[in-house]
């Protein structure tokens, strides 16, 4: 029934206009600059740079990402953003300058000079910056400026997606789903986690996908929380990203992976059973998980609050993990947004609390990755993820539609 609901609401594959995408995002950043009274935004965090300039985040280690980092600068009132970056691939609507290497002392000094060149002296000016490197602090690049949080600026711009952004997320999810088909066939007794990751990465290479943004997770779950790692929440430890287990028949494996398409993230989540069909308890947990999803989707529409969605999920009466009274992992959420970040606002059901959830009002263009979890001690749990977007009169499903084998086609 859930699969049918999702299929009925699936957004058709849409073309992506990368020029309009760049234009729309720049307009939203400019609107935020004006609303927040900010004269200059200096962005160093990869997804923020991508949002401002269309330069996709590279799937490299953080050490490469920071030393070789591109820097985006958005000046209030200007038609085009600036990008400090040497390589090709910048969007033509972006003003490209040589890379500045702000992780190095010599580069930070250079960055300071470039800012003055672009915007004049910074003393007393209201400047948004998302992160400062040690070298920037030593060079005093923003020592005289009135700093505000650049990530909050971008967060305000990006919480409601444009149609092109939704199409990017949907395409990323479709590709991720396609790559996972071969992986699930390979998930047999005797295979290791890293071998499955290898199948996934090789399939991405075949499909021409360059950006696997997370070490793919294939985590065999304990039957009871006490059999797993000790946690600060007393609940389920996931995703640990540690070790290279060999799968045995009957293992309950939680799967999670994410790729980027044009800088937008997918989020694939499923539960697989290795080498056999699910038993009765496992099927029951899957059915309950579906019920939670349906209850949330029944309510989801513009104007509905996060609190209402959280209460709808909880009212489904599903068996929940230890350490919580709600059907999701207590260190995570019922739902998170996705976009240039794999998890961004709106976050629903977090430890930000009920007031926060009640204040988060759904609006057309918001995206939710729903990831409830059902759990029975002794039987383990079911977890999967689906991406939906709020529409003018309800919601639509993003992605190609991926079955729930071995629980349901």
């Amino acid at each position, binding site marked *: 029934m859930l699969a049918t609901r999702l299929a009925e609401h699936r957004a058709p594959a849409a073309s992506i206009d990368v020029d309009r995408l760049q234009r729309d995002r720049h307009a939203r950043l400019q609107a935020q600059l004006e609303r927040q009274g900010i004269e200059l935004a200096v962005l160093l965090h990869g997804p923020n740079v991508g949002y401002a300039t269309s330069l996709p985040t590279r799937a490299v*280690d953080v050490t490469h990402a920071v030393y070789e980092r591109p820097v985006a600068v958005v000046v209030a009132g200007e038609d085009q953003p600036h990008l400090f970056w040497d390589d090709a691939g910048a969007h033509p609507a972006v003003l490209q300058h040589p890379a500045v290497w702000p992780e190095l002392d010599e580069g930070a000094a250079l960055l300071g000079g470039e800012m003055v060149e672009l915007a004049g002296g910074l003393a007393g000016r209201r400047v948004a910056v998302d992160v400062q490197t040690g070298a920037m602090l030593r060079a005093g690049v923003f020592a005289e400026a009135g700093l505000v949080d650049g990530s909050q600026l971008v967060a305000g711009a990006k919480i409601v997606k444009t149609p092109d952004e939704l199409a990017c997320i949907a395409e990323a999810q479709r590709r991720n789903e396609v790559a996972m088909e071969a992986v699930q066939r390979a998930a047999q007794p005797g295979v290791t986690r890293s071998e499955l990751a290898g199948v996934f990465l090789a399939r991405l290479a075949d499909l021409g996908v360059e950006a696997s943004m997370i070490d793919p997770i294939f985590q065999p779950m304990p039957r009871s929380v006490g059999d797993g790692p000790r946690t600060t929440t007393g609940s389920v430890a996931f995703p640990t990203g540690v070790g290279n287990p060999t799968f045995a028949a009957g293992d309950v494996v939680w799967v999670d992976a994410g790729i980027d398409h044009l800088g937008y993230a997918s989020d694939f989540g499923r539960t697989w059973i290795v080498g056999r069909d699910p038993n009765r308890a496992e099927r029951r947990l899957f059915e309950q998980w579906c019920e939670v999803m349906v209850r949330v989707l029944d309510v989801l529409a513009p104007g509905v609050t996060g609190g209402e969605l959280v209460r709808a999920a909880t009212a489904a009466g599903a068996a929940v993990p230890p350490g919580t009274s709600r059907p999701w992992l207590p260190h995570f959420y019922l739902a998170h947004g996705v976009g240039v970040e794999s998890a961004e606002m709106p976050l629903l059901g977090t430890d930000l609390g009920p007031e926060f959830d009640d204040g988060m009002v759904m609006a057309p263009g918001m995206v939710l990755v729903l990831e409830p979890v059902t759990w029975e001690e002794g039987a383990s749990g079911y977890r999967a993820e689906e991406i939906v977007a709020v529409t003018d009169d309800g919601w639509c499903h993003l992605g190609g539609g991926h079955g729930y084998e071995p629980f349901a086609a």
Partner: protein
Amino acid sequence: MTTDAETPTAAPAELRAARRGRVFDAMAEAALDALVLSRRDFVAYASGASGLWTGGTRPFGAACVLLADTRAVHLLSTWDEGVPPEIPFEHLYGVTWNPAVMGRALGAIPGFGTARRIGVDGLSVGFEKAARRLAPNAELVPADDLLQAVRAVKLPAEVDRIRAAVAVAAAAVDTAAGALADGAAPEEALAAALRGVAAAGVTVPASAPVVAPADPSGSLVHVDFGLLVDGYEGGVGRTVARSGAGVGADAGAGGAVAGAADAQHRLVEACRPGAAASDLRAAAGGASAWRVRGNGLGFEPPVVTGSLGEGTTLVDGMVLSVEVQVGSARRRDVVAVAAEPRSFSPPLPE
């Protein structure tokens, strides 16, 4: 993540203790009462903890807090998996989305609130505000340079691990080059190499893997793998011939490959103790593009190019990634700075 790759010599616990000791010694020297780390590599170096790898930058956050007085390590982790046994469970604070919860967790760390000097590896506006409230008497001091200085000269056990990582990267290059020689398309060769290293337990890149045409004719292909193995980067890059388009048939292409090998040899030979940026620049004379940079828990300083790294002096025990391009041919090798510098790359078919 933990891998099945060739087991390096020193026991992990000894390496962790040695790295941690170096960090606390450096904190003492810089009179830091506390150190707040955000970046994966800094956290791994100081704490020995491993966790889920994600690509690209992460927003600044207090992922690890070290206290000078007690030499205690506190870690942002909801579970004890991947946390070394010397960090007690009570020193873990869980993932939170709520700045107030994070503030309480940091405030509860003994010695944080009374710290006078707190080192940071970066800074966000939000964390700066929180730190001023939680540790009102503290001065925030950038400490990334201090930590990079500690990391620059590698411990012998680190060199062993980097050597093991280079062996995995070389195997990836070998697999891809073999597939290309058998007529595979670049994306097929890339897939084969990624499957091969994954079978050995390695699934995390340092740099973006490259199997891509090097020239319009497609007779040459760049193959470059930088992989993280137990947190340490191993990198090898070559430009190789595709099947049916032998380098010998194309004097220009063959010349570029030989030229890159020669330029690389000269640059590797220059990686001796006492060498300055000017020495590396002189050695790189014939290269159309080149870079020498630190190689450890990923990309590290120093970074020396034609325009960066003035004032750099190489010292014994540094490990460097040496990268050159001559015409349409590239090469990357990892080398330890020594009186007789040698590439860590095993022999590969040219």
